[in-house]
């Protein structure tokens, strides 16, 4: 797959996640979410469990954005 295609998919998933961040936060805070084609296709608190689920469904991970939805208790000082 070419860089253009990979970037297009990453951006599309990222834009959709940002646009719906509040509702996704309310549903999935402190979980990993997998976003693809304007939908949360899987979620889990444990990344390895989520990855097993995605691979069992034969999902191409290049087409999925996996993000952790941080709760308000996270506060990082750099």
């Amino acid at each position: 797959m070419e860089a253009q295609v990979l970037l297009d998919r990453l951006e599309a998933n990222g834009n959709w996640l940002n646009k719906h961040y509040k509702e996704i936060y309310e549903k999935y805070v402190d979980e990993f979410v997998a976003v693809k084609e304007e939908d949360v296709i899987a979620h889990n608190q444990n990344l390895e469990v989520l990855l097993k689920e995605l691979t069992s469904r034969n999902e191409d991970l290049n087409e999925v954005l996996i993000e952790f939805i941080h709760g308000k208790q996270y506060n990082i000082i750099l």
Partner: protein
Amino acid sequence: MSSIRIPLKVESLIGSPKPVLYTTIHIPQFHVFKPLKMFVDTGSSWTMISPKDTLLLQIPISKIRERKTSYGVGGAPVIGYAIKNAVFAFRNEERKLVYKVASLIYASQTEKRDREIMERVLTFPSILGVEFLMEHKYKLVFDPFNSIAYLEESVL
């Protein structure tokens, strides 16, 4: 002198807006070519692929000899595995692809076996650090109030 801008997204990340680069990463020696989101962090010297992304990119860290221990985002100890000459591809403001080679970055993994620390470390984002900005003479412009962020490269 003119300049080339690389637009960044401003996204809520760990509770506040942060500048984020959407890129692909190509690591030829490990046959890795994947999309990646990176948080541009002027508080980090190094570019670090997070433990989560190290796992997702399937970087074979056991094959990497050069390592260093550091304290990652959030203070958790991580081991950085040195990767030379990774190629990043991202878009400029005309949406054309720009290719940049990072002479040295690190793929990170926690050294702790404590379950709570391991789980916390897996939530950290990948970081584009100051070394990358220096290597490519990028200036970071970040206006969180107006959600504007970009990298700017001066061209003679």
